[in-house]
């Protein structure tokens, strides 16, 4: 071999194609009912020696058997490509967007995503499933499953069940798959404490030591305050209006707020503290305050970037887990 270097960490991964071994088939309640009817007709046919009643009974039985294959086929060969979910706050429902790959198959009808296995036999079905949906042949589609996210941290996508009763509702076929996906669950933003006082930024701000120019977004003008850097003064405006104003750039935050667990010591437990911090982070974001955070050994510089907010929330979500 010329190329002895294999791509790193290419581990065999479960192929999510739903094949023969992975598909379970059982009659539905209606299917059992149908089978009983079929048997009753057969008994009647025997009693009355009625050839056509025999024929009806056998035809119904044959339809039942064919329905097994048809229902099976409706699911076989479908692949689950995985799932993904946007972060949610604890107490909300995580929306796992499952991607189903039907590129190899024909049109599939009336699929349902369930979070628990369907009950075979005569028991009633639990009501926690998506509405049935159809999939075009050769298509890739997404279907959403809502999973309750009770507590912060990482919510692993539960084992899902895809089920179909097409075409007759006599038979249900289902298969399990466990998409390798999890959903980041931020702490529920809770707590009554008001946002701590923010600090006005010092002139020693920019860690980079570079003047914000070029690609930094111009944010607005604000009256000059003692301590504002001279290079931020809008000289042209001064020349026109005789007013000392400074340009504000989104990067160059003036208001900075440092949050830490110290500030929420009063709260009873860690979860409540993290919830309070999460709420502050959101509140600060609404007010345009750059938030930094000290969380254990982690230190996050204040920033305005909306992605920064997610970084903070994520840190809160994963703290000490």
């Amino acid at each position: 071999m010329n190329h002895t270097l294999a791509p790193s960490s290419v581990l065999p991964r479960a192929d999510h194609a739903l094949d023969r071994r992975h598909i379970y088939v059982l009659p539905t309640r209606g299917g059992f009912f149908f089978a009983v009817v079929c048997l009753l007709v057969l008994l009647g046919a025997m009693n009355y020696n009625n050839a056509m009643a025999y024929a009806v009974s056998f035809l119904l039985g044959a339809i039942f058997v064919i329905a097994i294959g048809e229902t099976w086929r409706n699911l076989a060969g479908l692949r689950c490509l995985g799932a993904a979910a946007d972060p949610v706050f604890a107490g909300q429902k995580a929306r796992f967007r499952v991607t189903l790959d039907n590129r190899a198959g024909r049109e599939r009808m009336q699929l349902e995503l369930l979070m628990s296995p369907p009950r075979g036999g005569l028991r009633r079905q639990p009501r926690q499933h998506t509405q049935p949906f159809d999939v075009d042949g050769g298509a890739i589609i997404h279907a959403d499953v809502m999973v309750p996210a009770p507590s912060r941290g990482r919510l692993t996508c539960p084992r899902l069940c895809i089920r179909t009763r097409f075409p007759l509702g006599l038979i249900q076929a289902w298969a399990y798959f466990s998409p390798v996906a999890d959903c980041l669950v931020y702490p529920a933003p809770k707590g009554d404490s008001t946002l701590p006082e923010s600090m006005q930024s010092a002139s020693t701000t920019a860690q980079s030591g570079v003047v914000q120019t070029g690609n930094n977004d111009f944010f607005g003008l604000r009256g000059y305050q003692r301590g504002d850097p001279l290079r931020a003064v809008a000289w042209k405006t001064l020349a026109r209006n005789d007013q000392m104003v400074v340009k504000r750039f989104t990067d160059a935050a003036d208001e900075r707020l440092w949050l830490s667990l110290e500030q929420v010591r009063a709260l009873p437990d860690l979860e409540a503290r993290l919830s309070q911090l999460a709420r502050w982070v959101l509140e600060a974001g609404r007010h345009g305050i750059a938030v930094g955070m000290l969380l254990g050994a982690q230190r996050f510089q204040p920033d305005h970037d909306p992605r920064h907010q997610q970084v903070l929330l994520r840190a809160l979500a994963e703290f000490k887990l």
Partner: protein
Amino acid sequence: MNAPARLANIRTGNNHPREVHFLWILGALAMALLPHSLRFSPLLVASFLALAFWRWAAYRRWLPLPDKQHRRLLLTKTLLVITACVAVWVSYRGQSGRDAGVALLMVLVGLKLLELTTTRDFFIATTLGYFLVVTNFLYSQTIPLAAFMLAVITMLTASMVALYGGRHEREPKWILRRTFFIIVQAIPLAVLAFVFFPRIEGPLWGRPMLSEEAQTGLSDEMTPGSISNLTLSDEIAFRVNFNGRIPPAAERYWRGPVLWHTDGRTWRRGSLRDPTTPQVRFQGEPYRYTITQEPSNKRWLYALELPAQIDDDMYLTRDLQLLGRYRMRRRTSFDLISYPRFTIAELTPAEHQLGLQLPEDAHPRARALAMQWQAQAGGDIERLVRIALSHFNRQPFTYTLAPPLLTEDPVDQFLFETRAGFCEHYASSFVVLMRAAGVPARVVTGYQDGELNPVGDYLIVRQQDAHAWAEVWIEGRGWRRVDPTAAVAPERVSDGLEMMMPARGGLRIINDNPATAALWRRIQQTWDATNHRWNQWVLGFSPARQQMLMRELGLGDIDRSVLAGVMMAAIGATLLLLSLSIQRSSVRERDPVRSAYREFCRRLARIGIQRVPHEGPLDFAARVARLREDLAAPVAEITGSYIDIRYANGNGRDAVAAFRRQVSRFRPRTLAVP
């Protein structure tokens, strides 16, 4: 293949059945009820339609439904159910249980329509529909009805498909196509089950509630005109398949009830109660045949004179009438062997007495004539018979389907005044004459001749072939058949009645033209042949017939449990085939190169080296070589050919063939553990 992923088209509405589903099931149920609507009171049909309309109007929001929001209507519904049940009980009280049952089912289906809300309700309605289909077959099992019911079953199944039709639920074409797909697959399976499913002779419980209605056919009484009425009917009495020779028309006497007793007008069976079977000597060549008799609701069976070998569940009476143990309530087939020539040696005193019975003071003129003949014959009975027949022949007797009404002494009036009659007139008056002359005689009713259907090569015997003839006792020769009708109208016996009558059915314009008449006849014959086969092989597929088929298939006398096993195995095999085809279809490979490579991978997987789906052929070959040095060379060779064909330019038919040979030769084995 570049279709972008899209969010599943998830319906926002609830998953409950809607109007479109209702229309499907309504259509299917209406079809199932259609044949019944001709049998039942229009009121029943009207109430079904009214209930259906109510449900439909509720979908349209014109009328409320009896549900929890409308408690008063709920009460109305309860009242309706009670009323309907009472009405059915009252109107069908004392009548056959079948009619009452079916009427009740119809009412229930109508009321179920009102309750259609959930998927489950629809399911129940569909199931009731299947039951309705079966009830139709309690009345008739003809081919047209069976075909129509197949359509009904398709519609009922289609209404289930519509329920799960998703975005196609408003496309009837799509729904029907999917349904056909299922039905077409199901039919062969059903046929297999029909043939091989072990049949049990019913009934399992109780008596079948079958029609008690009078059937046309011969009875055990005969009055002038009773048989000639029958000749107006072209209903089929029975069909006969001959195994070998077919007897000539003159020998086709199908023996039925034998009548001994006369009150001057009506002939009855009389009081012969002798359970013994007479000693019969058979001569000549026998006929072997199978009779498929239509239900007559009578015990007697018709057989060619005279059956020598009969089934267990029938017996021959003393006066040579074939009787079944039960009434013939359904179409039955039985195999018989008959000898046209036979003799019976003995006449019991009781028979002798019955054979001479005549009402006191009746038929004075006939008696006088008989005495005169007796003197002429001088004890020679055969001569007496000849004299009598020649009398019928010479005197202006006519044979007619519409004889004049006989008001006085029927025998005398017929013999000396009207001289126009039908077979029963001739037979009865002949017997009276014989008895008056002191010769034991009796009337035999049955059928004569029959129409040979060239299409199916079998004989159709209709009610219009009903006939009556006489038998006289000749000492030393036994009972001899004498057909006085033949003396008057010989063509009646040789050609059958058919020639004397216009063709059955059809328009005049068809019958007037010989060519179209022949064609029409041919069509009728074909249709009858089809029906006969249907009756014999489908409707009459009895346990015995199943055994026979098994023997013909070389399966011999198979035990029922074995048959059940075969049945189950067949279903299992079908399921297996089905699942294989599913698996095939999901990974079907058209490209021979790829399928050969897949096979190569399968063979390696069998020895525990599984190719990961995203593993390239070279990487896989290298891994195999690392794991199994002994396989390195052949694997490298095969992989080389594969990539040459698939990824380089080495695509040629020879190369492909060589590659496939390489793969087929490649048989890796697991290493033996030292």
